[in-house]
């Protein structure tokens, strides 16, 4: 990994997932006895066929889905029924969605200001200052007063990343952040994500972009049917995948 800014304790775990299972009310088991550890400043890429439970895993990490059994600890806080704990974790874990989910009735600036003011209790001026910094970072300052509908998909997703970053999260979750984008816009969003990775942000990224995995990931998790099939570095996956299923999957997405 290249120059990491806050990579000092890169060996300590920030997310500990221990034997979690999740079955939806319709009887589909999306996660089956799933365990993993994510260290500070690590970039973890999660790959797997559609319906393998990647989104469910990510959504469990900030409590968007309830787990049936097992435990999740984020930065020392247990993600349990305790509402205060959950709120604390929601504040520390940012999430970027496939469909962007910007608030359509607010300008770009207000989208990014909102949680800073409501949750971090900043004044409007303080929030706006940070918002403008973040817009510079994702390269879209000129759209501060625009509404989401006036932006391209790539621009919307960069704003959504800025909005999540505005909470100063310790972990960022990306659920197929580039899957809904036109091909010519994928690059600009991946660039922002790569920059974040290089700065030492802890990231869990569900993606089919193997180029991204190769460039910045520390760990790749291949899952199927709610279970981890194989874990390793991107190099490991490219040159010497152990499992037959991994090979088949990779040959499909790389072709």
């Amino acid at each position, binding site marked *: 990994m290249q120059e990491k800014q806050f990579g000092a304790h890169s060996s300590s775990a920030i997310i500990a997932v221990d034997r979690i299972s999740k079955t939806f009310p319709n009887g589909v088991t999306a996660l089956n006895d799933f365990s993993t550890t994510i260290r500070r400043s690590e970039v973890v890429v999660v790959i797997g066929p559609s319906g393998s439970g990647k989104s469910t895993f990510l959504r469990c990490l*900030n*409590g*968007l889905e309830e787990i049936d059994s097992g435990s999740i600890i984020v930065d020392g806080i247990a993600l349990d029924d305790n509402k205060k704990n959950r*709120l604390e974790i*929601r*504040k520390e*874990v*940012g*999430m970027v*969605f496939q*469909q962007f*989910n*910007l*608030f*359509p*009735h607010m300008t770009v600036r207000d989208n990014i200001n*909102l*949680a800073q003011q*409501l*949750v971090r209790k900043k004044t409007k001026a303080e929030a706006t200052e940070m918002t403008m910094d973040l817009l510079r970072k994702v390269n879209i300052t000129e759209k501060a007063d625009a509404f989401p*509908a006036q932006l391209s998909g790539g621009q919307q997703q960069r704003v*959504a990343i800025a*909005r*999540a970053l505005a*909470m100063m999260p310790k972990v960022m979750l990306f659920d197929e952040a580039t899957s809904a984008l036109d091909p010519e816009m994928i690059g600009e969003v991946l660039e922002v994500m790569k920059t974040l990775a290089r700065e030492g942000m802890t990231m869990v990224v569900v993606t089919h972009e193997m180029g991204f995995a190769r460039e910045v990931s520390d760990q790749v998790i291949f899952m199927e049917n709610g279970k981890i099939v194989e874990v390793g570095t991107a190099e490991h996956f490219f040159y010497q995948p152990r499992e037959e299923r991994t090979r088949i999957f990779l040959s499909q997405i790389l072709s």
Partner: protein
Amino acid sequence: MRKKPKLTPLDAVIALLISALLGYIGYRINIGLQYKWNWGAIPQYLFRLDTATGNWTANLLMQGLLTTIRLSIWATLIATIIGTIAGFFRVSSSLFKRLLGRTFVELIRNTPPLVLIFIFYFFVSDQIMPVLGVDDFARNASETTQSLLTFFFAPPRFFSAFISATMTVAIFEAAYITEIIRAGIQSIEKGQFEAAYALGLSWRQKMQHVILPQAIQRILPPLAGQFISTIKDSAIVSVISIPELCFQGMELMAATYLTFECWITITVLYLVLTLSLSLAVERLEIFMRRSSV
């Protein structure tokens, strides 16, 4: 290109049939019933010249219309408050609240309105109004308060009855508004709730800043439509002697025997009110749709 309206043969046949039917009804009334039309008697019941002051004032029917309007406005306001609370219950994460909301809606929507009116009215007017001292308050209020009460609600002598009837209609309409609010909230994409959650917003902040501002555009037009329904539904309180338009009509009919003139006039009064509001709601819908893109 707009098509020129063209009368097809079928349209002509239908028009002919309708005029024939209307003609026959008119014929039956005039010839069969030997009905003596007396439209001249009606205007005085709309407005009358107050000989003491020399001003024209609202008479029986107009007073009834005004009471209908007042009752409908207050009932809709109260129903909106109850319906909003119950609507939030309907989408709550707590099973108990969802059950409560659902029970309220189903109970009211599956009971004949007339039965509800009797139950609510006698309970509210017998048990609740005396406890609140509404009657005494209205009767003993100062003259200015009394004239204000008369203007916004009803004259002191039937103020308490008016409030009871309003509450009754409000609870009834609230069940429908509950569903409007629920549908409005549930029409917002799941992703909006999830984004707000992931950003650390509390339930209240999420509703206030993210969900409701979007839902309101989808709630307002049907809510305005419900107001129109309330105007029509309010006629039912004539059975508990609230002098709204329908009740005044019955009084007038009993006094004059001008059955058709009286009910046609009342129909027209209701129509003028509801049709103009319908047009306004249509405008509102178009405006909302435009401003939402």
